[in-house]
Every structure is written in C-alpha cells, then in structure tokens.
C-alpha cells in the first residue's frame, strides 16, 4: 500500500517562470513537469534527531557571537508551528533558517553589498520541532537590501526557511516576511506567488504574548507541509 499525499496545489505556488523576477527567465524549465504516482522514493525522506542539532543552534544572538558580545539589531523571537495539511503537528522535523544581518548584509563570500558586516552574527540557525510541532529562534530582525533585478530593487526584510517533514515530497524552502513591511507588495520574488492569501501566510505577525519584556519582541510564523490523503483501500479507511 503506497501512501498518497495531496497533490501540490500549483495555484498557490509560484510558477517556475515569473519574468518580473528576471533570473527565472533562464532558469525555468520550458517543458511541463511530469506528474507521477507516489512511491517510497517520494513518501520517505531523511530522518533527523537530537544528535544532528547542537544546543544553542536556534539562538542566532549567541551562536556566532564573541563571548560577552551580541549582534547589532532589533532582538526578535521568531516562532510558530509546523503542521501538515490535515492540521496535524509535524514533530521532530528539522527547521533551518538563514538571513542577512540587521544592515542587510549576508555572511557569504559572494555577497558584495557594502553594508556593514557584523562580527557577532553568522545568520544561520536550526532546530527540531517539539511534540506539538513548535519551533523557536532567537535572532535579530534582518535589514532590507538592494539586489540587481530592476534599476532600484529592494528585498523586504526576510528570513529564509528550510523544512523537511517526513517525506521527500514535503520538502519546502520559503521566506518569512514581517507584518507591515512596505516592500512586500513591490518585490517580484514575493509577487511570484499568484495568490494574495498565500502571500499573507508568509508574513510573520507581531505576537505580543511571546515577547520577552525589556528584551525581545516576538513574531509568529506557521508553516504547513503537504499532508497524506485518506484513501479507501479494501473497504477500510486508511491514513486517517
């Protein structure tokens, strides 16, 4: 019995070719994607556990900082839950993030933006979700930065997310934006998503309940991975 997942709803996903984001013009396949029935190749995927993650990996304020120092910028808690499409928590799954520092500069050998590097900020974190699918990072809010797309293009402040789930077909990379950022409607990468509700769901919301008073402001960002379909098999309901 092969487990079947809901087909990906491509109406809620950015198409491969979105010409306003110019790099997609040369990098998008011209042929259509071939649909396939799911097999173990798609319904299994790498498994991670506590030994793959080190204590403090989810604290970007400390995981690269020199002793006694901390990165510059607005201190934030970014947290949320990873659910599947059936609203079940995805527990024990690996969540990785990466981001620019508070001035919009990445710690990457290919980033040539002249904004200041921060010697106390690596910009990379990872964690496993708990039994309830919850994750949390402590970091600084990244800065907006210019990029070579149009003559004056700016990325809204964002944090990149990588999430696994339990099946290779659930693999997801996305970006989390911040409520109220005026650059969101102007960004061709964001606007590659054809559905405004789907864009809204990529926007982290201020979460006053999770702030740490006199320390850090909090934002909430929930993630939904593909879920298994319930199927009737030999007159039994399976997978539900």
């Amino acid at each position: 019995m092969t487990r079947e997942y809901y087909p990906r709803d491509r109406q809620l996903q950015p198409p491969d070719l979105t010409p306003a984001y110019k790099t997609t013009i040369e990098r998008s396949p011209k042929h259509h994607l071939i649909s396939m029935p799911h097999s173990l190749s798609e319904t299994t995927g790498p498994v991670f556990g506590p030994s793959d993650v080190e204590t403090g990996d989810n604290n970007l304020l400390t995981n690269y900082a020199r002793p006694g120092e901390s990165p510059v910028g607005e201190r934030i808690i970014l947290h949320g839950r990873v659910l599947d499409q059936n609203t079940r928590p995805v527990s024990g799954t690996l969540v990785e993030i990466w981001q620019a520092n508070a001035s919009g500069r990445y710690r990457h050998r290919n980033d040539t933006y002249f904004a200041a590097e921060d010697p106390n900020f690596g910009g990379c974190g990872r964690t496993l979700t708990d039994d309830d699918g919850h994750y949390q990072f402590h970091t600084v809010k990244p800065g907006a930065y210019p990029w070579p797309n149009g003559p004056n293009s700016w990325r809204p402040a964002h944090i990149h997310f990588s999430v696994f789930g339990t099946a290779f077909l659930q693999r997801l990379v996305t970006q989390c934006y911040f409520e109220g950022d005026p650059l969101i409607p102007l960004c061709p990468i964001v606007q590659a998503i054809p559905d405004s509700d789907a864009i809204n769901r990529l926007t982290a919301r201020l979460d006053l309940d999770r702030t740490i008073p006199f320390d850090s402001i909090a934002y909430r960002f929930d993630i939904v991975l593909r879920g298994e379909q319930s199927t009737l098999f030999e007159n039994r309901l399976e997978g539900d």
Partner: protein
Amino acid sequence: MPQSRAPLNETASQTAGPYLHIGLQPSTAGFAMHQTELGQQICAPDTNGTHIRVEGIITDGTGAPVTDALFEVWQANASGHYAHPLGSGPVEPGFCGWARVSADFQTGEWGFDTIKPGPTSGPNQSKQAPHLNIWIVARGINIGLNTRMYFADESAANAQDPVLSLIPEDARRATLIAKKTLQNDRPLYRFDIRLQGENETVFFDI
C-alpha cells in the same frame, strides 16, 4: 476515493536565493558554524554495494553554469531500502541515503560519492529501476525542482520502470540516464542537468 481537498493549504515556496549555503552548508558560504555539517555523506566506506561517483554540471537556458545551485540527493541502499521507518526494510549503520551537494561557484560542476542503490518498490506492486531522487534549489528557482537520475547500465530495469515510462519521448527519457565510465577502477556516472532549452532535463511534479 481519495479526498480532493485538504483542510489546510501548503505554505508557498520562495526561492532559496544565491546565499542558501549560509543555512544549508555554511562551510561553502565561507564560515565555520557547526561541528558537523548535515548532509556530507550518503554512506560509509564500508556500506554494502558498489561504491560509485556521480558528477555533472548544471546549466541554464543560455548554457551558462548555475553556480549557486544546491542539490539534495535521496536514495535507497543496495537492497532497495530507504533509511526511514517506512523505507521497506532495515539499512546498515552509516547509511543515511541523503546528502547535500553544491555546484562550484565558478564552473557549476558538482559531484559526490555514494553507492549504487538497488531496485525499489513502486506503485501498485511494481518495481522501480535503481535511481537517485534529486531536489534542486538556486537563485531563480521559485520552487524546488525534482528529478531522478537512472543508470545507463540498467537498461532492462529502466525499460520496465514505471516513472521512466511516463515520459513518452526517447530523447527526453534519455536526459535522466547517467552515462557510465570508470575512474580509478571505480564507476563514474555523468549526469548533466539542463534547466531549460536543448536537452532540457525532465522534472517531475511529485
């Protein structure tokens, strides 16, 4: 009958961007972050099966190398089992079946060492020919691209493979079949990926 609608919508994908290494492979970005970086080894030196190397180049529609691409490979062991609780059987210690591979910043060439997987079970009691599952992200890729690499020296199994048979054109099917040579007595499979244009690699909606 399968349900047609799920209660929740999947989160939308966004490009991993050119600096994806920071989060996924920081040593490639240029700094030391973790004691052990994830995805460095698919298997151990003593893993059962034929040890092989896989290499290729990734290019765009103009033929230019895609120098910021990152791949994830997911494969079965030599017995056709995936390292997963539902992976059809046990795997040996040291075999995880998953790795991350970055394209070279100048040339777009990539490569990794692994073992040749066995045939795996497919849909409806079918058997799938040995293959690697590959997921590709990069700047300019809005949503990760999924493809498969098959082996040229498995022509009988490939002819019966339920996924290859979904591709009607011989020439397109051929884009998924890696050519075999030998390198220091070890099999070397060449698998070039072309995102667009002539000999465009087949990608799947999985």
